């Protein structure tokens, strides 16, 4: 919007007639009651709360946000992702959200909303129970998985936004049964599979079949303005996964943002720390593992647009 008021690139596209459309000095102009803004973005890695969704490989993102003078806002977003991270994925994810914002932009301001994200095609089968049987030959007990079910990653959230000056925060509470597929099958199954000591995984299964509805997610951003087109963003985040403290994590991000040539450039260092590091592993087709939460550097270029 205003960022583009004097944007050279935009002005170059304007016909001379634009000047004639400036509101006449003696008349009150019609003031718009909506805005639509968006961006197309290319990233060397796409992460959510410090955890890569693209197997630490490049990604593309489309984002569209609309607001009405009443305070109602809505957004849609689509991005590529990796089927190494989201099993059987079609290769993209989508997000839709809607809500209401209010307050004083120079003081406290707030937002309330609902959001849902889809991971088309992505699903996995996992056991929800582990029983023990006795090997008749050795007489030793061995685990027998049971209650195998098919799970998806789709997740719904309630969202609360709050901001004061340079500080912006967001709290999300998971409304769907699972937070991005976090449940007994995925969390306990991963621990049982990847840990040399099966105790943690078995203890996890012993807690019963659970989803992760009620998970808490908190993000805090502090933006330090360097000049009119450059800023430094410091981010800290925390996720507390209900029923699965093994998946609790915190994340960090330091991002340098700069606007030039009509594009928004971001260079950021970021990462996450998961309580159970096995949950941050993903495997390629050759079986080689990568840590999705490992610290990394990401370069992003975005083309912003407005209607």
């Amino acid at each position, binding site marked *: 919007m*205003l*960022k*583009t*008021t004097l944007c050279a690139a935009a002005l170059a596209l304007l016909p001379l007639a*634009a000047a004639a459309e400036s*509101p006449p*000095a003696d008349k009150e102009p019609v003031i718009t009651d909506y*805005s639509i803004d968006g961006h197309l973005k290319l990233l060397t890695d796409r992460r959510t709360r410090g955890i890569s969704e693209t197997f630490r490989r490049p990604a593309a993102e489309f984002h569209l946000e609309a607001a009405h*003078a009443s*305070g109602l806002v809505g957004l849609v977003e689509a991005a590529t992702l990796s089927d190494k991270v989201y099993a059987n994925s079609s290769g993209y994810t989508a997000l839709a959200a809607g809500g209401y914002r209010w307050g004083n932009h120079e003081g406290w301001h707030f937002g309330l909303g609902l959001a849902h994200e889809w991971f088309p095609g992505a699903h996995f089968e996992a056991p929800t129970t582990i029983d023990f049987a006795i090997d008749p030959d050795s007489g030793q007990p061995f685990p027998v998985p049971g209650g195998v079910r098919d799970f998806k990653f789709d997740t719904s959230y309630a969202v609360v936004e709050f901001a004061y000056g340079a500080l912006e925060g967001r709290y999300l509470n998971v409304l769907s049964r699972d937070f991005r597929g976090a449940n007994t099958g995925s969390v306990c199954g991963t621990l049982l599979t990847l840990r040399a000591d099966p105790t943690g995984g078995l203890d996890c299964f012993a807690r019963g079949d659970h989803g992760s509805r009620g998970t808490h997610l908190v993000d805090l951003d502090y933006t330090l303005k360097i000049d009119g087109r450059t800023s430094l963003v410091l981010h800290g985040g925390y996720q507390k996964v209900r029923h699965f403290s093994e998946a609790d994590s915190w994340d960090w991000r330091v991002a340098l943002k700069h606007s030039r040539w009509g594009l928004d450039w971001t260079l950021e260092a970021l990462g996450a720390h998961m309580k159970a590091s096995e949950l941050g592993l993903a495997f390629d087709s050759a079986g080689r593992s990568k840590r999705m939460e490992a610290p990394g550097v990401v370069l992003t270029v975005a083309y912003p647009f407005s209607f």
Partner: protein
Amino acid sequence: MKRRTSTSVAAALALCLPTLTVLADDTAAAQGLWLSAQKDGVVELKPCVEEPSALCGTVVWDKDASVSPPKPGDCGLRIVKLKRFDDGAWRDGWIHDPREKKNYKGMIRAKGNEMTMRAYIGIAVLGKSEDFTRVDSIPAGCPPAQK
């Protein structure tokens, strides 16, 4: 008693005068030439000709108009009219976005050599801000007649 009253009034006036002076300074703080953050345009803010109590802003330099051959630019385009100064900021009016050809509600806050222009819909939370820096002169480019 009478003398005491006069003294009180004088004291009250003495207290008020600096405040009034500060208010006058604040309303004038936004006046002048302002270079956009992208350094591609200069806006001149000054009292509106048709309504001197309001603040108007006109594009007096456009980077596109200074290239050779000149591209169509926005020289002379009025993009700001704000009617009320309150709580250190100009409010109640409109800001015009030439690219979108849309008018928004607006707010301008200036302090020293920094100025922030905010365009929004409905409430100020639903908007975006752009920072400007004060400059002393207008670069060559806009046709003189339009400055």
